[in-house]
């Protein structure tokens, strides 16, 4: 037997650490240190990462966006005080669950759009005006935000939406009727449109 760290490990370490990490999340929240709380939830369109600042929901990310990269970006752009702490995401998780179950048409959550800026943020602020089950085109959204020539920029604003599903960029289609690209993949966009058409 060698003198090593293993001597001081206990078979209960995993449980102890998981308990201590839960406790850290609560203490950090109480002390105002939890700049970014996140969790992951299962959904019919794959595992979603949900993250919130004290101001509101700041990020919804699909699997294909690479959750580790999403966390790195938030650490860099918002604050490195990022912890897995599900409690702050309870309401968002519940509303998403209701949405995917066809029982919710409007999200009622405080949002933090600080991961986008300028024209993109302006577009994202207007997207919730497109109602559940409806669709519009990039050109119409450009008109809606008072800049009818900015069709491509509207496309970019949709592609960089930090809050997909909740901010419904999936309801914006190409003017030729094609579904158009989507941050979660075209299949996911079609699945969301089918869900809303059926409910």
């Amino acid at each position, binding site marked *: 037997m*060698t*003198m090593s760290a293993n001597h*001081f490990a206990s078979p209960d370490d995993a449980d102890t650490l998981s308990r201590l990490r839960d406790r*850290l999340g609560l*203490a950090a929240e109480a002390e105002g*240190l939890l700049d*970014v709380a*996140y969790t992951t939830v299962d959904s019919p369109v794959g595992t979603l990462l949900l993250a919130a600042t004290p101001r509101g929901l700041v990020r919804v990310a699909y699997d294909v966006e690479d959750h580790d990269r999403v966390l790195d970006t938030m650490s860099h752009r918002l604050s490195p005080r990022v912890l897995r702490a599900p409690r702050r995401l309870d309401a968002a998780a519940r509303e998403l669950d209701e949405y995917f179950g066809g029982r919710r048409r409007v999200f009622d959550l405080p949002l933090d759009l600080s991961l986008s800026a300028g024209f993109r943020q302006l577009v994202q602020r207007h997207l919730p005006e497109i109602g559940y089950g409806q669709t519009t085109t990039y050109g119409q959204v450009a008109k809606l935000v008072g800049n009818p020539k900015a069709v491509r920029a509207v496309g970019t604003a949709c592609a960089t939406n930090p809050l997909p599903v909740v901010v419904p960029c999936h309801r914006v289609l190409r003017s030729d009727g094609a579904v158009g690209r989507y941050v979660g993949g075209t299949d996911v966009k079609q699945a969301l449109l089918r869900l809303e058409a059926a409910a």
Partner: protein
Amino acid sequence: MKPPFEKVVERSGGVVLRVCRVILGAHDAEDAWSETFLAAMRAYPELPDDANAEAWLVTIARRKAIDVLRARKRQPAPVGELPEAPSTLGVPGTADGDLWQAVAALPDKQRQAVAYHYVAGLAYAEIASILGGTTDAARRAAADGVKNLRKNYPDAATEGAPS
């Protein structure tokens, strides 16, 4: 670029827990762990990007452990004599109770040097900056600690330990 704090907890949570256990025993170790990571999270944005986060955490853990030891010594001892070493011993569920007895019986400096070198894997130069004193003194404290451990817990050898 600085990793999200969650990654720091994931990477070093276990090491910090074992360091706290060696210094304090199993029970108080959990409080010291919590205090350590809360303080670390507070200061994390100011930590330089190229810093050794684990060595930094161990430094904070040591400070928190010393706070706990001090608080413990201020409390009246029921036996009328101040214990030289921590009285909370052992990790529930381990068969290594004897090792914990042996570790707890070490003088403070030796116990810390053993924790930082053999548990946290820190280099002696880093340990010296934590404990104060020279690199040689840190190496001697760890060596004396292991020698004492071997006396009381013959299974503990030093092969495979980090250099």
